[in-house]
């Protein structure tokens, strides 16, 4: 599904990704771990096409399409979702309005018609309930006054509604207590299917206890230096990056 080949990316004049390669197939759950500054967030941002990052070499293809040629919102239309590490607040825009606009934008990109208001409400309420989100929160402005955990749950509800083919989750577990972590993990697990893929970018192995990855990669200094299975994550936790990488 996702093929990243020898990716080099810079922010400003600094090169962060220095030849990263990765392949993710449908039905797989991957985890990328790495020390601070290794390039984890840069990878997520580059996959989504954030303008402050420049790809200088290499390629990213998604289901055969060259992702680098597409704008951010187009990549979403193709089926990629980014769960933010720090979801931003947008005063004045309600969660409902936001979600409906996002969903319909993606549908239009794919040549489908807008979802009816009634169907949309049914869908959102159902997903919110599954993830134990108080429906009242849907009426509030996007992330305004939400706690860290509530923001992350909001991200998972959005993911559930938009149902992406590939979900890239950037440090989704940071700042969560056990209860919030369980809810978020539940949301991620619900997204696991034969036709979807998940890429979790995480600092700690804790999340991986709840969402068991098929593959674990270690990202150090802009490249993937080692790949393995879940055991690798445990080894990492025990020994630290210096020893394992």
């Amino acid at each position, binding site marked *: 599904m996702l093929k990243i080949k020898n990716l080099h990316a810079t922010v400003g004049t600094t090169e962060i990704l220095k030849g990263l390669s990765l392949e993710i197939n449908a039905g797989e759950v991957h985890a990328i771990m790495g020390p601070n500054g290794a390039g984890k967030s840069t990878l997520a941002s580059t996959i*989504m096409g*954030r*303008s402050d990052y420049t790809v200088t070499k290499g390629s990213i293809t998604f289901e055969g399409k060259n992702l680098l040629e597409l*704008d*951010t*919102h187009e990549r*979403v*239309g193709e089926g990629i979702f*980014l769960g*933010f590490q720090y*979801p*931003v*607040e*947008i*005063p*004045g*825009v309600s969660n409902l*309005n*936001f979600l409906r*606009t*996002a*969903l319909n*934008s*993606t549908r239009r*990109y794919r040549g489908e018609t807008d979802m009816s208001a009634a169907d949309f409400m049914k869908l959102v309420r159902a997903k919110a309930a599954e993830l134990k989100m108080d429906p009242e929160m849907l009426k509030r*402005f*996007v992330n305004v006054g939400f706690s860290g955990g509530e923001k992350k749950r909001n991200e998972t509800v*959005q993911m559930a509604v*938009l149902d992406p083919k590939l979900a890239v989750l950037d440090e989704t577990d940071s700042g969560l207590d056990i209860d919030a972590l369980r809810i978020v993990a539940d949301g991620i697990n619900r997204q696991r299917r034969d036709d979807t893929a998940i890429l979790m970018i995480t600092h700690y192995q804790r999340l991986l206890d709840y969402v068991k990855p098929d593959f674990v990669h270690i990202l150090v200094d802009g490249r993937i230096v080692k790949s393995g299975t879940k055991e690798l994550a445990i080894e990492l936790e025990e020994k630290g990056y210096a020893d394992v990488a």
Partner: protein
Amino acid sequence: MTDQLSSAYAEQVDTLLGVIPALDAGRKQALDAFKKIGIPGKKAENWRYADLANLRAAVYPIATYSKHTASALEGDFAGKFVYVNGGLDEEQSFSSGCMSDVRVSHLSNFMVSNKNRASDLLSDGDGILLLNTALMREGFVFHVPAGVKVEKPILIHHVVGDADKAALHLRHTIELGEGAEATIIEYFSGDDGAYWLNNILQIRISENAKLNHLRLLMDGDNATHTGKCFIDLDAHSRYSSFTVSAGGKMVRSESHVRLLGEQANVKLDCIALAAPDQIHDILTHVDHAVPNSISNQMFRAVLAKKGKTAFQGKVIVRKDAQHTLADQTCNSILLDRTAEANAKPELEIWADDVKCSHGATVGQLDDKALFYLMARGIAPDAARAMLVEAFVTQVIERLESDTLKMLVTAKLNQWLDTYLRGNR
């Protein structure tokens, strides 16, 4: 140039003498005063941002009354008064039962039976006001008697058509008796002629009375709109004003508020949507003359390509006006490199036991918020429109009436469709 203008306008005044006899003396005096100072130039202090070069360069004949059907504003109104080129169009106007206690009149009629009230009309001010005094032809005169509460809004629609390079000088008054309540909507629209609408409204709100005032300035693309509102508030009264400035080529809108009684409360909100080549110069002047009064202002501007806005908000707190609470917020968002936003929130404080503050920000749409929206599949234009909508909605939320909220939101959406969503 002032001489040429003065003599031309003197001729116009001559044609108006005798039309409303009570005003004749005032007209002549105003014209004499105008001869000395003329139309304000860019060097005059509060005219730094708006250049009335077109008004200085040519004489504007008085627009003739004509027949137009204006595109209507949807809503459930207590009454509707449509003025076309300054003349009341009876056919398009109506007044329902809920307005039965309101005394509605028009300048020309009113001055016949109330000659002594002519001195209530302001005659001292800048060149714009002086010309208005000299050349005013018509306007509405509303009096809401004490205790009368009009539930539904009263709509006054000013339509201008076939008045290219002509001027309309209108003078209106609204009076609310003690404890009275009303909501007035002033809606300005016009064709694409380069007309000049010179509109002055004097409002007096007596003790315990409340007035909600919505102004939709949506003049034609080439119009010059100079508007002044003078509002006097007595004790315990309230004035809530909301202005949407989204039309015309050059809009200069002034609100002069005097808080003359304790516990008076004024709210002045404004959204300016500056489209290509438009200038919106919004000026407010709030005078806290007595203790314990409150003023609150919120101004937000969105500027598209080559748009220009200025917010000049002056708050004076006089020596005896202790325990005044005055606050102003002014935020501008530039959507294009060629736009220009200006702000001058001014405080003149002479009393010490007060709390006065103002804040101003100028910037652009939040990058992170934009990316967040795009990262959820929303295309860039739609994402920008969403954020602009959110920015402006925070001011619209301050309106108490849902009817008014809907009206304003509809106008906002029209603007967004045209300039941001590319649906023109």
